[in-house]
């Protein structure tokens, strides 16, 4: 089979799974739905492997295959195909997404078991995977936007999965609204591209763009910035980041799948995909890189002080995506994608471990209440440490290699790009620190009440169900989290998923070691071979190893500092906190970003809104629109009055019309 056939299979399996579970949920048992869900993704993953195999079979320069199922619309110069593009980039993303999704589905089998909405969950989850893969495999901007919007919807549905929890539905709406802002940016970009280049097909666009646009032509910059709006909204970069932390209201597997491993990386993929455009608009690319850098520092600092376990990991996600955005924007496409993959492994792992711990804490998520889980949950704790080491970039874990590759690329480009390298190492320090803050707080120390209970009885703690954020009492009926909690220690599915990810997080980095192996780089030649940056900026092996050394030292330093503060000398921590309470408050308030948005956007908008409510609503809407409606009604009733039922009246109207037309033609022809 050709690579494109596999491509269609990759898409078909999760779609079929979603439809089957969604349509047949009354007939399917929850077990059957779960197995169907996992099976569909497994088929997708195997197809992705098949696509990889088929792609490696053809020469490098032919590794961009487009296949069109049918032409959706062909009007007035616009030709829109339902087509997919299978190239190394797409296959790489499809492999990562379907592979991690498969493991997360597996984890969910056990984790969500006692939830009333078990079947709904798998239908949504499969639909999400389908949308994400559609976004990845799309062969043109229109299909990309379709996938993009579907993903946004899936994210909304899954964040609000516990739909009777008010905080969850509010978070879902927030995520959806911000995502729609991004969609608009993307749609505008596609319209501009269509107007300028007369096509929305990737390959045609990338082919025509260099002839059509001069470097840094304003239109090209505008297009790239609009694409960035889409990318930033989906990838939770400044200033569109506020939804991601709230999105942690969703079930933990959702956080792992959507808000760590896959959906939020769509922006990175998009920039990598559109790299020929960004290389024509270096200014836009630089802006994107700066946004990435700012986000990575910002989110890293916030993660230092947040106390909600899942939110710490969420801020860490923003920060790590900042690295990737920075990487693909400065031209380190391979490195950016490499980090995307390793991040998917270790971040999904961290979320899974967090989920297991939260289950043991009876849904409470505050790390201040957690301690001493190392003895209570050795498996979970062990993998939490593995994930944290990978996140902290500790050698030889996967994050160690991938993160440094981005930073040395920046250093190698030199000039102002040094800022990205230095900023990146600062960020790496923060990362290592906060990731071990979690480890030291959660795993070490005397066991907390819940950990104690687990050790004593072997059963996870149980409390009255309540909302972890607002503390409101809750039900366990449909629309709320299930009655029982499931921990990795007691479920082989969760163990298997976490164990696999643990191995990947440990070894995933080895596919690309400077001077030793460069599997990824040569694989990506098929997608990025046309890029000037990708081919000319070659990092010498020596520099790369120097970068790795700095990275390792940074990580070690940060981890030992964390150890000092959280284990050896806790009084120092209290002292620091007391002395720098202002900084702490500033960070804990997330740099007052929500307040800033409130002041800058929300308030002026509501003021405008009030104005329009008072003025426009009454005069414009009430007057013009209301007037129009009244006029339409009036004419409607007039038309009906003319329909008097009198046959002779009809004949008269007909005759009048005839005379009128006759007169017109007489005049027109004379």
């Amino acid at each position, binding site marked *: 089979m050709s690579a494109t056939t596999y491509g269609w299979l990759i898409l078909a399996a999760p779609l079929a799974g979603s439809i089957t579970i969604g349509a047949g949920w009354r007939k399917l048992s929850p077990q059957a739905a779960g197995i169907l869900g996992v099976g569909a993704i497994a088929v997708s993953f195997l197809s992705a492997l098949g696509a990889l195999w088929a792609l490696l079979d053809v020469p490098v320069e032919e590794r961009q295959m487009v296949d069109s199922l049918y032409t959706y619309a062909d009007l007035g110069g616009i030709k829109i195909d339902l087509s997919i593009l299978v190239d190394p980039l797409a296959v790489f993303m499809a492999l990562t997404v379907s592979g991690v999704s498969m493991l997360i589905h597996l984890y969910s089998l056990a984790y969500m078991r006692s939830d009333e909405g078990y079947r709904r969950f798998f239908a949504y989850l499969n639909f999400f995977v389908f949308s994400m893969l559609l976004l990845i495999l799309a062969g043109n901007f229109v299909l990309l936007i379709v996938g993009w919007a579907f993903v946004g919807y899936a994210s909304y549905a899954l964040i609000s999965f516990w739909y009777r929890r008010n905080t969850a539905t509010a978070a879902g709406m927030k995520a959806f609204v911000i995502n729609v802002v991004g969609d608009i940016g993307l749609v505008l970009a596609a319209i501009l591209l269509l107007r300028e280049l007369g096509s929305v097909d990737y390959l045609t666009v990338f082919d025509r763009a260099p002839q059509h646009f001069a470097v840094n032509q304003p239109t090209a910059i505008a297009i790239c910035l609009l694409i960035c709006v889409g990318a930033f909204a989906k990838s939770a970069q400044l200033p569109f980041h506020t939804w991601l932390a709230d999105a942690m209201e969703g079930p933990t597997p959702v956080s792992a799948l959507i808000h760590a491993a896959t959906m939020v990386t769509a922006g990175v993929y998009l920039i990598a995909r559109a790299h020929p455009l960004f290389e024509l608009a270096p200014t836009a690319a630089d802006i994107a890189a700066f946004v990435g850098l700012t986000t990575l520092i910002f989110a890293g600092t916030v993660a230092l002080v947040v106390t909600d376990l899942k939110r710490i990991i969420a801020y860490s996600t923003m920060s790590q995506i900042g690295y990737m955005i920075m990487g693909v924007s400065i031209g380190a496409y391979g490195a950016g994608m490499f980090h995307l993959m390793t991040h998917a492994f270790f971040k999904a792992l961290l979320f899974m471990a967090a989920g297991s711990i939260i289950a043991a804490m009876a849904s409470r998520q505050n790390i201040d209440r957690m301690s001493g889980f190392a003895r209570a949950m050795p498996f979970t704790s062990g993998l939490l440490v593995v994930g944290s080491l990978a996140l902290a970039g500790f050698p030889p874990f996967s994050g160690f290699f991938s993160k440094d590759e981005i930073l040395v690329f920046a250093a190698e480009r030199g000039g102002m790009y040094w800022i990205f390298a230095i900023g990146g190492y600062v960020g790496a320090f923060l990362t290592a620190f906060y990731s071990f803050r979690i480890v030291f707080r959660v795993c070490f120390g005397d066991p907390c009440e819940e950990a104690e209970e687990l050790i004593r009885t072997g059963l996870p703690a149980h409390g009255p169900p309540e909302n972890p954020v607002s503390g409101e009492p809750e039900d366990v009926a449909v629309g709320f989290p299930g009655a029982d909690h499931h921990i990795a220690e007691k479920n082989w599915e969760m163990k298997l998923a976490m164990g696999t990810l643990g191995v990947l997080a440990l070894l995933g980095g080895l596919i690309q070691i400077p001077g030793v192996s460069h599997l990824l780089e040569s694989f990506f030649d098929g997608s990025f071979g046309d890029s000037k940056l990708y081919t000319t900026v070659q990092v010498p092996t020596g520099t790369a190893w120097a970068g790795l050394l700095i990275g390792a030292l940074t990580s070690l330093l940060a981890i030992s500092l964390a150890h000092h503060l959280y284990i050896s000398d806790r009084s120092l921590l209290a002292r620091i906190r007391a002395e720098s309470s202002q900084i702490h408050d500033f960070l804990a308030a997330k740099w007052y970003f929500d307040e800033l948005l409130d002041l800058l956007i929300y308030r002026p908008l509501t003021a405008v809104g009030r104005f329009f409510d008072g003025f426009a609503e009454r005069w414009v809407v009430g007057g013009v629109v209301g007037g129009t409606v009244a006029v339409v009604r009036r004419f409607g009733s007039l038309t*009906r009055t003319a329909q008097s039922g*009198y046959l002779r009246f009809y004949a008269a109207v007909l*005759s009048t019309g005839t005379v009128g037309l006759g007169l017109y033609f007489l005049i027109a022809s004379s």
Partner: protein
Amino acid sequence: MSTEWYLVLSALLFSTGAVGVLIRRSPLVILLCLELMLNSSNLALLAFSRAHGNADGQVFALVVMVVAACEVVVGLGLIVAMYRRNLPLDVDEARVLRK
């Protein structure tokens, strides 16, 4: 006599028919008036046929006569059906369907 006069007569007949349809209330008379309109067309067709010196118009007129007969048959059939149901034979009364 030139063609114009035939046309004037035909136009007069057509208008008479049309006015008849508009002002008479009995369906029977209306049917008659419709016949008048069709026949005024026939007159015009024949006049043009003569003027152009070809037979197309005459053939057309013959066809029209057949068609006119069909229309009348259907019309009378409907009127008989209405009569048998004791519905008033007045088109102004036929206004159950309106608005």
